């Protein structure tokens, strides 16, 4: 038992600092992918609600393909397939130049692309839930369309969307562990190496699980506070 504590500790030969470094990488990847996912979600929701027909079709295709295919497969497709596509493209434009995509942006692109599909549906659902009368009222006040969207529809839709976005954050956080298959030294990747090096899988996988739990608990509290703040002025139902 004491021996195990030494292994996950911060002393000589302890994996403590390595695990903390891995946790930081996990948080960085999750936050970056989440932001990318939300931006994609906004575009996707716009496409599916008010885009022209062919844009609507692309939006529908995006959400059904991504949500219908295992996430690990999307990661492989983007990490291996996507990078070679970009390489061929740049080789066409600037012959003789060979570019590499670093593992981190490729991972964020893959996870963000997945999160974007879910975010699209969240935005779409909450935007559609806003009573059309609200837009009409905005137009009656002769607000411009972007003002109607930004000042009236979006603030109300966000309030509806926050619980679902809290959920999506947890999903993205956990999905980030998939990225260790492409060689990124995230929390799970470090934990795996440590477990195999020390032949103490239980010790390390439990530690990794506890760190994930700590991160998710803290973020759930944060989302709860955000929900309360956004709901201020609403009567509690």
């Amino acid at each position, binding site marked *: 038992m004491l021996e195990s504590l030494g292994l996950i500790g911060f002393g000589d030969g302890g994996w403590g600092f390595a695990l903390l470094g891995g946790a930081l990488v996990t948080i960085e990847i999750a936050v970056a992918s989440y932001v990318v996912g939300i931006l994609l979600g906004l575009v996707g929701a716009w496409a599916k609600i008010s885009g022209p027909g062919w844009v609507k079709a692309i939006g529908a295709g995006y959400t059904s393909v991504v949500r219908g295919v295992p996430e690990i497969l999307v990661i492989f497709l983007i990490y291996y397939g996507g990078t070679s596509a970009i390489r061929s493209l*740049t080789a066409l434009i600037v012959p003789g130049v*060979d570019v*590499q995509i*670093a593992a981190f942006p490729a991972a964020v692109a893959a996870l963000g692309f997945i999160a974007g599909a879910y975010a699209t549906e969240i935005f779409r659902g909450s935007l559609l839930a806003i009573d059309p009368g609200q837009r009409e009222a905005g137009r009656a006040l002769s607000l411009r369309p972007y003002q109607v969207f930004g000042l009236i529809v979006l603030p109300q839709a966000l309030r509806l969307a926050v619980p679902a976005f809290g959920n999506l954050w947890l999903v993205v956080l956990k999905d980030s562990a998939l990225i260790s298959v*492409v*060689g990124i030294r995230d929390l799970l990747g470090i934990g795996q190496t440590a477990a195999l090096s020390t032949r103490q899988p239980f010790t390390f996988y439990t530690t990794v699980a506890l760190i994930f739990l700590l991160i998710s608990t803290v973020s759930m509290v944060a989302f709860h506070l955000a929900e309360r703040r956004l709901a201020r002025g609403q009567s509690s139902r």
Partner: protein
Amino acid sequence: MKRIATLAASALIVAAALLQPAAAQDVVRLGTTPEPYPPFINIDPNGKLSGFEIELAEAVCAEAKVKCEWVLQAWEGIIPALLEKKFDAIVASMSITDERRQVVDFSGKYYDSPAMFVGRKDQDIDITAESLNGKTIAVQVSTIHANYLESKFKDVATIKSYDTQENANLDLIAGRVDLVLADSIALEDGLLKTADGADFERKGDTFTDKLMGEGVGFAVRKEDTALRDKLTAAIAGIRANGTYKSIADKYFSFDIYGN
């Protein structure tokens, strides 16, 4: 219009930040696994690599006068990552086989860990067709060792296949089979050096055979023939100047290079 130009410009800046130019030709990136494979590959909490294969590859780089960098990549995706130019050569105890040759090219081998039979100490067995007659031999399924047994001893001995080496070893300990055949280093570390292995010993000499692959080499992309030849020449170089032997002697009591 101006806004579109601004957008395009910022997209370009972002793209430039994300895309890094491919490494210059004199830096060779070596891909290895973050999963340890002692005594060939070990990794410490600071991410520092060590082990026979790591030291050897660094010696090969020094001999070839190229600067080498390590890149970690899980075993499952290591060949696709090589083909996608995430690194330039695989250093991960990858056996040279014809199947892999269809997608990658190999340098000359840099080690060839021999196989060995292990049996009970109190049982007198030679590794000959006569002595093996009627015996039962355990082996891990679809390995180079299973192929070897099938073609050499199928008619005289009973061959039992197991999904993992661990299960083959367990049946040997339980007395259900007379011998196991596997990689000598795997058997040394996984059986003979453990408490359960006290009653067991190597039967006959460690050996290699054409049927069991051609050893372990650097895997490179097929078009990188110059790198392949450079690595092959450097392996021959450190074999000749004694560097190879001084590294190997730190890890093994026998000749790991094989024949």
